[in-house]
């Protein structure tokens, strides 16, 4: 049977320098859990609806996440990116990379 999927990562409401440290820890934890549960998909879907505040440090962290996933031959997909996040990514020139595929499909758990 299919192993239960690890719940997708949700980006926090505040993705800024102020929360960067704890966010990183949270993500590392999430990835550790994910690999333990063995549910790592090639496409890592991340829920991006909640992001209300974002700055360059936050986007940098997101880029770091994408790089990490790329190292595992996976790619990041931001799902339902909030307006704030979308704008920030565009301003910082990462929109084509992080936002290419913004389908709202979710891999069925």
């Amino acid at each position, binding site marked *: 049977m299919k192993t239960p999927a690890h719940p997708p990562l949700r980006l926090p409401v*505040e993705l800024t320098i102020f929360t960067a440290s704890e966010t990183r820890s949270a993500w590392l934890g999430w990835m550790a859990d994910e690999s333990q549960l063995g549910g790592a998909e090639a496409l890592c879907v991340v829920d991006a609806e909640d992001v209300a505040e974002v700055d360059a440090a936050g986007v940098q962290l997101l880029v770091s996440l994408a790089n990490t996933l790329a190292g595992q031959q996976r790619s990041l997909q931001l799902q339902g990116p909030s307006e704030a996040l979308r704008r920030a990514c565009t301003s*910082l*020139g990462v929109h084509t990379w992080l936002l290419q595929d913004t389908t709202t499909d979710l891999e069925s758990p």
Partner: protein
Amino acid sequence: MSRKQDIDTSFVDDILPVFISEANEQIAGIEQLLLQLEEAPDDRELLDALFRCAHTVKGSAGIFGLDAVVGFTHHVETLLDRLRDGALSLTPELSTLLLQCNDQIRLLVSSAGQDGAGEHGEGAAERAALVIRLQAVSAGEPAAVPIDDVPPDAPAVPDVAAVVGAGGWNVSARFGAETFRNGMCPLTILHYVAGLGELRDVVCDTAAVPPLQTIDPETCHLGFAFNLVGQINSGEIESAFSFVRDDLVLDLQERANSSATLAARIDAMPDQPRLGDLLVGAGAITQVQLGRALQQQTDLLAQGEHAPLIGEILAAKTGVSPQVVAAALDKQQRARGNAASGAAAPADDNRFIRVHADRLDEVINLLGELVIAGAGAQLLARQTKQRSLIEANTQIGRLIEEIRNGTLKLRMVPIGETFSRFRRVVRDTAAELGKDVVLEIVGGETELDKSVVERIADPLMHLVRNGLDHGLEKPDARLQAGKPAQGKLTLSACHESGGILIRIQDDGRGIARDKVLARAWERGIVEQGVVPDDHDILKLIFEPGFSTAEAITNLSGRGVGMDVVRRNIEALRGTVTIRSTEGEGSTIDIRLPLTLAIIDGFLIGAGGTKFIFPLEAVVEVIEARSAAMVADSRGRTCVELRGRVLPVVDLRALYALDSAPPPRVSVVVINANGRQYGVMVDVLLGQHQTVIKPLSRMFRSLRGISGSTILGSGEVALIFDVNSLSQLASTDPTSRGAAGAQGARRSSAKEPHA
């Protein structure tokens, strides 16, 4: 998250009043400066201060996220930047506009942090109107309130301080690691930049961001590249990054600006001596890029590696095309040529600081005392025999020497300015005399001490006039002699073994020896019938009261000139010599020391007194037995040196020093005036950095001594004037006696009774 927000808000609430009060100070400062500037609209310092006030307000407001203040002040700041660069001038209308803007800034600041304040709060409409006017002024419109037309797209006032990139810019910005920790955010900054023009094709260097496992989320790893399109100047872009400037690596390149355009722009610029400045001014590179290239050059040099030329570094690092670099080099050469030939090269004002000459002299004086004190400390240190102390003192001595060299350089000015004054003189004088003469100037960029330059100007002028008057023939005489009708007078200057050589050369008729001799006999300067050798005949010209001119012209021939010239030059511790070939021309060589204040000396002792030779004059030292050196009554003797006879002066006899000579003495061989002679001394004491203290008037007539100095031990040492000492060694007793007597008569006549 909300808890964090609470903390943030209370923090801001505490500090905000501080911001408001400090900002108000700046705003008050702006008003004061604007009022002051109404009296002195070009005062650079005031304009700088004005910009800084606005910049500070904007920056602090940015920290508090007071976007309304930031946004509005930014427009004001942009205009102030152009003012301080000289791109705009402060007219009364502009002053009024700025005062109105300042009022708005005050309003915004006072309502900072309050709800409902900000861009859409009170006064929004006025601010919008002011912004339009500010932008119009920047575009070259007058600052008076315009009628409601759309201001035409007037091109900005062209200036070379900040270049308008019409095609836009390729910008690459790599933010430093501390950017976040310093409270800055690249996102905000990019938003700013977007406000300057059209921001396109932003690309982030994502590969530089480390993965989650290793990243420190508070360290910034972000770098961007983008295109900025619009009529923007490089300074505006750079100032957008000003708060992160220290950490940032910023590259600006004008787009679609062909090398040809840049080269043409370089050509049109005022003369700049430095390649880097030329390229920055033309917009080929930014100041930041230049700074980095210079740093790289310095680093390479420090590592002892061959450092490429700055042009090469720039071409490699910034992509400025070789054609542009070549254009700049060409311009630089021409500028140097201009400076050398004395054409009016506009001074590079930005790089200079005006310093009162007296202050500089004070520093140099203190430096002299420092040298002496250092020598004293060195002596004491040696006595303790403590190695580390001696080493420390040696190190200090080295540093003092470096400071000395550096400080003395501060007083150096190029001689070209003085030379170029002569062009006019030559032109007018030649015309007056009916002669056709061209003045050629070589080595105008040669530098010497300012006071030397000032004091050499008159003697030079006299020599030039002499050359024009006596040396150069009229055109028909020249043609008859087979020379070109136009005579040539060359003024050249160069550095030569620790001194300066100034040469005045003409291709005239040369000095007629027989005439000179005849006049010398006539005046009794030389005994009738005695024919000195050629070298000395020429030197007779410098004797007082001498002149072979049949007709005394306005310019020369009164017989006072050459004597005074020589004395002036010797007062500068210089020498003047003449060489001449009859029918072909004459060459006058003036040799001057680089500086009057400090020299490298060679310390010796004789008869219990210490003396110093200028080190540059010392050739070698030989030992002799004192018994073998028998001096005549005048203290002269001689010694054989490699098959030649060397005249030697015995200081003991010369200065009547009491005490018996040691069994072995040394003879210091000195080179002066093209001749060598020896000086017998008791003991050699080595090299000594000598601060020259002039002799008081009482001792001026003392032959052979040009100054004194204080040694580390506190003793006074006398400094030799090697030229007059040589005369004492070599002149024959009769004329020396006469000259000595003459000297005595002259001095007793001049000096009042002590």
